């Protein structure tokens, strides 16, 4: 009998459908644009009319190869199309064109960042490798809409989405918590978006996941697996996390109650009900459904050339991990700060790197990105491409702080001016603040005057508390509002040191 909560682990595998960012559908030239009037983006091919035939969209192959390269998968030399036969109202041909035994990508892995353990230094990233089974291309189905308000159940079908290219990525059951599953999905999304493979828009269904979940209970050095449950309809990071948490608890209770292990109970498919926060039984099957896969005789197999594979590898270099390493190893950012930038997407990271290239101090720039730039983007609801201040100006502004031309609060005022009027030069913005450069000699005599009046500060500094000079900044400002705080502190410390 199992009665201890500590004696089990969670085993999760994800199947993720990624909508590829092609202009047109996988086998016809209809647009893939989202949100158009129902059935306005259809043709004889995606409607499954008699006599219509599919023609492969080469761009989908290119994107799938790029994804495969980024997922460290093996790209097939030879891949083909198979029909998955089943009846469903939003499947107009009565079969889905997919890939069965020869997928375009096999194996592979994704390294996901996981929380570092207590005894590891905070700056060091820890990764877990999630292995992949495969990734294959297939066409999406249409969308059924059920209107139960109109008295009789009234169903409508929108086939705009039918035939949209999807890459189905299947992981090994290497995920061991709801949080890991969420991180995996998030990392996958980031990868697809960075490489231009998908727009990753989860609200529009560009990324959808199904999770296979079960528990392994330890018993006398062996383990007992509970029946695998496939949870469908996970369309947000949050629903992935919640559904797995729910399902884990449910299976735990169920197993304690019934004691039924894998093979002793039918495999279940459950749907996630986001509103009620629970998974609901959709079907139970003793055997796998028989889809009668066979090679599609209307399409020709695809042979990937070495040149195509080479291109895929070249186009898959700029991954989030690549940027992470650049930010952390090259520019010495804290991993948590780097992660915030990475999560903002490639254009933000590129903006940051352009600022660095233009001479901005990486650490200071990172702080400014996190505090100022991102806030402005958020306040204005704009992307970085609409941010008014160029990387060159930003670098100039930050350099002005380095050279003590302005202090931080003045630089921020100057940034505000630049945001209001993008045509302003950095110098003009600083000038407009009315900052008068205080002469070095003048500043030094001011400091001497202050130290003479504050013997306690001198004592404190001499005792090792250098921060005590900060108390003099306020007084200096009162006497001369243009006095630069950093310079005041530096000069005071130097004067005290000279006293010894």
């Amino acid at each position, binding site marked *: 009998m199992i009665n201890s909560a500590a004696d089990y682990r969670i085993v999760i595998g994800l199947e993720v459908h990624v909508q590829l960012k092609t202009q047109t559908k996988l086998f016809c030239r209809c647009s893939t644009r989202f949100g158009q009037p129902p059935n306005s983006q259809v043709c004889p091919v995606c409607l499954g009319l*008699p006599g219509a035939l599919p023609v492969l969209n080469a761009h989908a192959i290119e994107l799938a190869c790029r994804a495969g390269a980024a997922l460290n998968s093996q790209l097939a030399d030879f891949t083909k199309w198979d029909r998955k036969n089943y009846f469903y109202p939003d499947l107009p041909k*009565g079969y889905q064109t997919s890939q069965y035994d020869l997928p375009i990508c096999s194996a592979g892995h994704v390294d996901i960042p996981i929380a570092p353990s207590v005894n590891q230094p905070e700056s060091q990233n820890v990764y877990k490798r999630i292995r992949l089974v495969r990734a294959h291309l297939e066409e999406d189905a249409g969308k059924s809409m059920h209107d139960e308000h109109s008295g009789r159940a009234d169903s409508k079908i929108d086939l705009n989405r039918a035939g949209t290219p999807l890459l189905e990525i299947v992981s090994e059951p290497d995920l061991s918590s709801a949080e890991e599953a969420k991180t995996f999905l998030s990392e996958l999304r980031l990868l697809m978006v960075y490489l231009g493979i998908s727009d990753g828009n989860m609200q529009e269904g560009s990324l959808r996941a199904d999770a296979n979940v079960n528990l392994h209970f330890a018993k006398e050095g062996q383990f007992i697996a509970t029946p695998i449950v496939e949870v469908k309809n996970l369309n947000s990071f949050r629903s992935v996390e919640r559904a797995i948490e729910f399902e884990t608890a449910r299976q735990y209770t169920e197993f304690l109650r019934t004691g039924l292990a894998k093979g002793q109970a039918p495999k279940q498919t459950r749907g996630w009900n986001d509103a009620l926060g629970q998974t609901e039984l959709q079907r139970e099957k003793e055997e796998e459904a028989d889809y009668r896969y066979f090679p599609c005789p209307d399409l020709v197999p695809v042979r990937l050339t070495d040149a195509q594979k080479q291109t895929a590898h070249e186009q898959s270099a700029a991954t989030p991990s690549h940027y992470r390493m650049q930010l952390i190893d090259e520019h010495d950012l804290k991993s948590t700060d780097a992660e915030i930038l990475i999560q903002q997407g490639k254009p933000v990271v590129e903006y940051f790197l352009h600022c660095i290239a233009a001479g901005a101090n990486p650490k200071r720039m990172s702080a400014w990105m996190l505090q100022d730039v991102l806030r402005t983007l958020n306040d204005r609801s704009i992307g970085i491409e609409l941010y008014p201040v160029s990387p060159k100006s930003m670098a100039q502004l930050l350099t002005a702080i380095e050279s003590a031309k302005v202090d931080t609060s003045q630089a921020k005022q100057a940034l505000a001016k630049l945001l209001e009027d993008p045509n302003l030069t950095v110098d003009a913005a600083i000038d407009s603040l009315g900052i008068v450069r205080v002469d070095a000699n003048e500043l030094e005599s001011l400091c001497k005057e202050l130290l003479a009046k504050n013997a306690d500060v001198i004592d404190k500094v001499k005792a090792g508390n250098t921060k005590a000079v900060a108390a003099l900044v306020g007084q200096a400002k009162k006497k001369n509002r243009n006095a630069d705080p950093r310079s005041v502190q530096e000069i005071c410390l130097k004067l005290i040191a000279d006293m010894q």
Partner: protein
Amino acid sequence: MNITPQTLSLTALGKQLRSGALTSRRLIETHLDSVQRFNPSINAIVSIDADRALAQADHWDQQFALGRSLPALAGIPIAVKDNLCTKSGTTTCGSRMLRDFHSPYDAHVIEKLHEHGAILFGKTNLDEFAMGGSTETSIFGPSHNPWDPDRTCGGSSGGSAAAVAAGLVPASLGTDTGGSIRQPAAFCGVCGLKPTYGRVSRWGLVSYASSLDVAGVFAHSVEDLAIVLQAIAGHDPRDSTCLPHEVPDYLSTIDQSSVRQTENIRSTRIGVIRDQIESPGLDEQVRRSLKDAIETYRKLGAQIVDIEMPHSKYCIATYYIIAPCEASSNLARYDGVHYGFRSKGPEASTLDRMIQQTRSEGFGPEVRRRILLGTYALSAGYYDAYYLQALRVRRLIRQDYDDAFAQVDALLGPTTPQPAFRLGEKINDPIQLYLQDLFTVGANLAGVPALSIPIAQSSDRLPIGMQLQAPPLGEAKLLAIAAAYHRSVEHQPTIPAAFQAPQS
């Protein structure tokens, strides 16, 4: 001999239209009159848009009057099998499922016919979804053989064959998946060509078995086959299986001086498949006619070579696995959800029941049989033993053809085991009916071009056909070899007396 538009070749019709001796309107009216008079007895044409045909005829007549240089088929009526999608009228596939179906687009072959000036003159009867060999499974009832109305015109393109044989049109299009052009051509005493798989686009050809289907031509002469093939062949980016190879000038290879032709035939090696000629199931009159034809070729100087096709005995079994497997999936789209027939019966209360009832009521027994066969053969546990095995045997059959064509330029044999059988004779015995495809399915499995030409009449005055097959894309040579035979025996296309239009 009476010279009516009915017996004129496409070339002769073209000359008359260009000289003004004949107008397209008169041609169309004559054929409309024939249809009205004769179609009820043979049921070859199932729908026709007379006004549209006449309007097109008037258009071409204006163009002829202006003395313009016009495409080869300008103003000439051509009928097409009703599984080829046409924007005008219905495309029924002879099925209750699509009885009222209007295609929003034209098949590639229809576009090509229009491009070459042809006037779409009616849709022809067929076995439901092209499944059958007697045009008896059509929702419109059976078509009849113009040479003997009690007999079948063959199938599945029976309507197209009968329409040409009865003089209702000078040429027609059919489709051939296992012999559906060559067998009815043989039964009806006309010429029928199944091109190389992929030589003609399948865009708009309603799929039965995608890896076997191809559209082809019926006409009275080999020259006419060449003219129509010239119009419909060629690459189409909408069909991934369509071949990109350039289309040769088919007519010029046939239309040569007799001296050149004699030279050509002297350098030709013709393979005779002994197993077929000596087949115990072959009708004696057919056997004798074929032996005569072989002698004719020998006299023309061709080298006759015996050919072994060791795997040909597996053709029927292989075909009747592969074709139903593909059909079971190709016909899954007819579910009553989006278009076509939908069962309204009380049993169709839920979605699943609606789909079941729709398919049970919308398809006839032969289509249901093949869908069930294919579904079974593709099922888990049977796939390897049936479908995969059939694919392996198909490769061996292709290898037989490759080996044969390493030795000879063409293969000669019977098209059918015997002349046209009686209507109703085999419809309740599927195996007997399937065996009719014995000599024809090989060409589909191997994807090679093949044709049937009339070579004799039986004692019952029933036509006897001869099949010639050539290597992939060897249509030019195939047509030339067939034409040489007809020229040598001075073949005259004839229409059964009962269908000869009166002189006007």
